[in-house]
């Protein structure tokens, strides 16, 4: 799949996964790589950027097994950004689907 395209979609997925509850790195990456084929390592730079841009806040929390985990929490700005991305995505994919339907008739 086109790399730039995937990157945009990846950003959207990461934000969506954190909407309902805070997630830690592995959980987040795993839930995406379950559905989309990606190099898992490339999600962390994305998480870092989104954190630096203020869309995520991070905190450490104890886990049952092993050392504390870093959790990603969607901020208010992150939620607004997500809403904007989802809207753009829906418009975009609706247009693409329309084009496909018209072209494949």
């Amino acid at each position: 799949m086109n790399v730039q395209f995937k990157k945009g979609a990846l950003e959207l997925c990461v934000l969506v996964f954190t909407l309902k509850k805070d997630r830690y790195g592995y959980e987040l990456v795993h839930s995406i790589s379950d559905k989309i084929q990606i190099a898992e390592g490339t999600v962390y730079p994305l998480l870092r950027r989104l954190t630096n841009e203020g869309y995520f806040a991070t905190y450490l929390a104890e886990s049952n097994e092993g050392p504390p985990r870093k959790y990603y929490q969607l901020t208010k700005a992150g939620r607004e950004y997500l809403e904007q991305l989802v809207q753009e995505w829906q418009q975009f994919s609706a247009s693409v689907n329309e084009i496909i339907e018209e072209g494949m008739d």
Partner: protein
Amino acid sequence: MTKQQFLNELNRLLGQIPEGERKDILSDYEAHIDSAIENGKTEEEAVADLGSPKTIADELGVFVATDKLSGSKKETTTNVGPNIFAFLGMLLFNLIFILGPVVGVAGAFIGLYAAAFACLITPVAFIINLFTHDTPILLAFFLILATFSFGYLFLLVTNFLAKWFLKLIHWYWKLNVKIVKGSN
């Protein structure tokens, strides 16, 4: 590749990133590999699924560069010294080297617009001419058509060039702002 090999390689590739941040990045990957192993992957698989350290470093490289930029922007409020110098430097440079040519080119555009406008109103003169002198009507018609089309084309071309000129100025302005804001 083992976990340690992966982390060593990534650490080497991220050499220019400050140590604190680099450790933070590495610990993300270490925790990820550990979790993957807990969830039943072998160390080898867990590392392979991450992709190559090179790919990760490339991805981070871009972000680190932008982080530096935004970081220095934040500093502008506290650390004014270098920015004032940058500002004065840019001001001096612009006054000496940029202002003259820009005013010159802007003047040239005023001239070009005036010329285009002159061409466009020339037909009026021909029309008046038709009434006062007995110019052959066909000749007048062609002259009107010719000067008017020429004037119109001239206007289009000038407009096009002027747009690019404005874009260039806009770009240069942004460049200036960037230099003054991010000069650390």
